[in-house]
């Protein structure tokens, strides 16, 4: 009996036959993608701020201090204080934590759900694909605002419900992208070979299909984090996001933008900058990642 084992051994390959990791070292990446490096730095600064908030922040983010309401930036308060006298810098730093929790949770949960659905949809095809696609179509067409309003109204506001509300629309978007990548791979001979080997569906999906859609998937994830942070800001503007006295950039932006844009602009400028820079960083990094991984887009 011919030993088919070597042909059936699972390997993570992409269609150019090289492993992505061996192509671009970190230094190489920095050299070729200066913008991406900037993005990565921004992201890491925000992440560090969020993680080390307890040590970096000079004041409590939620304790009111009516003696120093709406003070402009000074040495005592690097970014000034807000309407309740709370130190803005501390709130921004703790806000990084909230933003990244929201951003990463939505991206990862939404991404994984989308990945599973997209790959399964592509792999099984036929009726399953048809039904799944219709369901995802409906969810994708459904305006985020309604979904969010409904989720918040039914379950209440708070970080977890906000995450749920934002994750739901992300799933079909991810599924769609993953599905089109997976569709291309489905017809490749080694999948058929794997099936001939008698490998189960799960094994084929996890070892053969998923690794090949990982590139666009990871790029989507970086985009999702940014989108989730922006979505939280929009929901907060409509009053549906995280609630006081939690420190969250979207919430700070809403309060500041509405009432104090003229008289105490720092209340809105700094959270706005924080959001923009973080999303900016993730987008730059995602772009650079795509440029680096996708062979078609590299320099000649």
């Amino acid at each position, binding site marked *: 009996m011919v030993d088919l084992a070597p042909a059936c051994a699972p390997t993570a390959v992409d269609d150019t036959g090289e492993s992505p990791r061996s192509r671009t070292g970190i230094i190489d990446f920095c050299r070729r993608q*200066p*913008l991406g490096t900037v993005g990565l730095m921004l992201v890491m600064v925000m992440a560090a701020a969020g993680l080390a908030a307890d040590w970096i922040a000079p004041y409590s983010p939620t304790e009111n201090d009516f003696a120093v309401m709406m003070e402009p930036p000074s040495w005592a308060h690097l970014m000034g204080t807000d309407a309740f006298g709370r130190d803005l810098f501390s709130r921004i730093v703790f806000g990084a934590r909230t933003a990244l929790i929201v951003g990463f949770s939505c991206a990862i949960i939404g991404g994984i759900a989308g990945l599973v659905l997209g790959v399964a949809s592509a792999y099984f095809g036929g009726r399953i694909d*048809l039904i799944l696609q*219709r*369901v995802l*179509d*409906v*969810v*994708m*067409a*459904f*305006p*985020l*605002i*309604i*979904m969010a*309003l*409904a989720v918040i*109204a*039914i379950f209440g506001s708070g970080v977890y419900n906000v995450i749920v509300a934002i994750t739901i629309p992300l799933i079909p978007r991810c599924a769609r992208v993953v599905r089109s990548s997976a569709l291309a791979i489905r017809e490749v001979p080694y999948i058929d070979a794997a099936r001939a080997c008698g490998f189960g569906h799960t094994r084929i999906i996890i070892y053969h299909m998923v690794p090949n859609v990982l590139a666009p998937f990871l790029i989507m994830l970086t985009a999702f984090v*940014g989108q989730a942070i*922006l979505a939280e*800001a*929009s929901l907060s*503007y*409509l009053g549906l996001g995280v609630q006081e006295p939690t420190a969250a950039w*979207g919430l700070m*932006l809403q309060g500041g*933008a509405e009432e104090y*844009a*003229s008289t105490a602009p720092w209340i*809105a400028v700094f959270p*706005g900058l924080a*959001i*923009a*820079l*973080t*999303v*900016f960083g993730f*987008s*730059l990094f995602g*772009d650079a990642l795509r440029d680096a991984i996708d062979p*078609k*887009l590299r*320099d*000649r």
Partner: protein
Amino acid sequence: MYRYIVNRVLLVIPTLIGAAALVFVLMRLIPGDICVVRLGSGGGNIDPRAVAACHAELGLDRPLILQFLDFIWGFFRLDFGISMWSGKPVAEEIAARLPISLEIAVLATVVAILIAIPLGTISALKQNSWIDHVVRTTAIAGIATPSFWLGIIAILVVLDLSHALFGAPWMPPIDYVPFWQDPLRNLSMAILPALTVGYRYAAVTMRMTRSAMLEVLREDYIRTARAKGLVERLIINRHALKNALLPVITLIGIEFAFLIGGLVVTEQVFNLNGVGRLFVLAVQNQDYTLTQALVMLTVAIFVFANLAVDLLYAWLDPRIRFG
């Protein structure tokens, strides 16, 4: 080809029904009662008899399945019912607000196309040059900035600038007049929101144009054309751009459908009496009929935009067209 078209069109129906079911269920899951909100939000006494009368008037006391069937059947007859909040026909409520939203959407699209395609092309042609970096950075900034933030800053900047330059602060009009009645006033109201929405739209389109162009420029036939000695400009216009634009048009079509979502926030910021603002209102008031109609409208726009794009692809892809 025809089989494909028919299939695609038929697939629209379950999506619409699915969306209808989803909005129906979601709205009724939200705790609260429009009659109570209507009669009591001022803080006064709410007479239970009045609430019961209101329920009867709005048909809320009927079994759920009947309400759902009524809704679906009405939708197919294009009869969208009466708004539970104001008592006016839903079609009237929406029609009164559609013009300004459409105007902003169209203006934003025009702005986006005018800015994005040229910039995206240049960026692709000069990949990794400083122009490329600047354009890409501006584009990503457009996507990274919260749109309502941009809108608020825009209004403030205009106010401050006009105050500094002309001595009197200027703000776009806050009440709508149709274009044919007073074009200048109408445009002055629409331009800031269109730019705010358009910036983001342009950013997304520009990125897509750039990456599509980059892909096309690496194709063999472009290399051949260059080898043959064709003028660069002709190569771009006649060969590259045409092929690159296909995914870009797809994106424009799909993003247009997403615009309604973006309009929700923009219309709040600029106080535009549009469909987006109506949406928020309808959901907050728990006005089932109005929300259902608006969701169906949004979903229908999205679905038909996708359908149009798919059909366009089918037409252009000879495998489907002639297969």
